[in-house]
């Protein structure tokens, strides 16, 4: 018992030291390792996940695929509700519980997303975002095998959402559970078809690593901040900005405090 507590404390300290020392932009200290895992994930995707997902799309009609997607989405609402509660967003948590109830009953075990029709919209929260909400910085960028882009905070948070999820409770039979997980993976991948090609075209050069990293970290930051719109603090320096062109430099310093002091900058204490 004591050993576990000691490890927990050590873990917390290490986490605290690394994450609270971080400031944006992206810290990627193990980039070489990340790139290797990223390459592995991409190959796995290209030769396995994507073809299977494409086959799934070809073989299964849209309505059924939407049903499957909703079914797994319904399970996802449980950790979402839990995390909304942890973040003090009681209204949102109540809405999520409402979703689960409505979709599981009227929506026949979640296959039909009745709740969205009724105005209970889908949220997306997880324990990583809860930690972020509590002030924990994202920490260094990490690419996880199979799971893809993540950060130290989000990786540490994964087991919590897994523990809260009820998907495991559906059945004890390993074969059925594995089949469900497999179907979920294919369903999620099918929803993302086309995006990988868009990414490849949009990325500079041949590899999408830097772009994916940028997108992931930004997306997480925005989710923590409730989807705040982009603040362009850099353009106080931006010579092309009409603001700065109109102003004469010495009299109206471009770095005067503007209402744009971004609330999303996490200042390290």
């Amino acid at each position, binding site marked *: 018992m004591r050993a576990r507590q000691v490890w927990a404390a050590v873990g917390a300290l290490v986490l605290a030291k690394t994450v609270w020392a971080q400031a944006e*932009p*992206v810290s990627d200290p193990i980039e070489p390792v990340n790139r290797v895992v990223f390459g592995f994930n991409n190959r796995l995707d290209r030769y396995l996940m994507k073809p299977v997902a494409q086959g799934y*799309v070809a073989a299964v009609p*849209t309505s059924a*695929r*939407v049903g499957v*997607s909703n079914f797994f989405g319904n399970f996802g609402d449980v950790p979402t509700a839990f995390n909304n509660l942890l973040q003090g967003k009681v209204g949102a948590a109540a809405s999520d519980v409402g979703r689960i109830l409505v979709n599981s009953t009227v929506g026949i075990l979640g296959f039909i997303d009745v709740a*969205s029709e009724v105005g209970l919209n*889908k949220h997306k929260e997880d324990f990583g975002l809860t930690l972020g909400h509590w002030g924990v910085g994202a920490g260094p960028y990490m690419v996880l095998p199979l799971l893809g882009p993540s950060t130290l905070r989000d990786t540490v948070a994964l087991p919590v959402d897994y523990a809260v999820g009820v998907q495991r409770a559906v059945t004890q039979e390993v074969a059925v559970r594995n089949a469900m997980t497999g179907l979920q993976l294919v369903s999620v991948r099918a*929803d993302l*078809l*086309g995006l990988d*090609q*868009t990414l490849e*075209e*949009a*990325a*500079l*050069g041949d590899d999408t690593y*830097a*772009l994916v*990293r*940028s*997108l992931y970290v*930004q*997306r997480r930051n*925005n*989710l923590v901040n409730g*989807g*705040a*719109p*982009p603040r*362009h603090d*850099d*353009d106080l*320096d*931006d*010579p*092309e*900005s*009409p*603001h700065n062109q109109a102003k004469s430099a010495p009299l109206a310093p471009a770095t005067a405090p503007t209402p744009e002091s971004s609330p999303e900058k996490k200042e390290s204490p």
Partner: protein
Amino acid sequence: MMPRFFRRAAVSVLCAASFVLATPVWAEDPPDVQVKNVSAEVLAIVREDKGIAAGDMRHAVELIDAKVSPHFNFTRMAALAVGRDWRAATPEQKTALTAEFRALLVRSYSNALNRFKELQIVVKPLRMEANADEVIVRTEVRQPGKAADTVDYSLEKKDGQWKVYDVSVAGVSLISSYRDSFGQEIKASGIDGLIKSLKAKNSKNSESDAASGNSAKK
């Protein structure tokens, strides 16, 4: 007496009319209306272009470029994506960067539109102060059977015209997303290296536009 009055009235009316007609009041729709119109037009291009049906994107890309470019400030977008190093660039480098970045963006955008043609774009109503010169137009992009994504356009008023200088998809700013990759490239091979990479990328993309490599049918 009477004819003089009428003459003066007629002259004032003519003056007023010419003043009104001379000011291009109709040229500048509010930014949300512009976003709505241009979005509808590019979607129409992608859905109806015969070249695309045959697997060739090039014509559609040209049309889309012509349609959207007047509404974008690509110079500022390139400057923001490049960041601090922009000031160190020569005017020729700036022009080249802007041109290549524009080609990259327009092509990726056109291909994405083509891939996700069944989408529906809904522009949210805009509340804007009368003399604002920066505004964010929020839109929702809906695909059948999926949750909506938000796409936000940051516009600035330059010389009386509204121009887009950033686009955010699901809260992720396009410009910020490129800053990382551009920064890495500049560190590795300078601004000229970045221009070269962009050029290479653009010619690679245009080759696959011409070939029917754009058959990512869902």
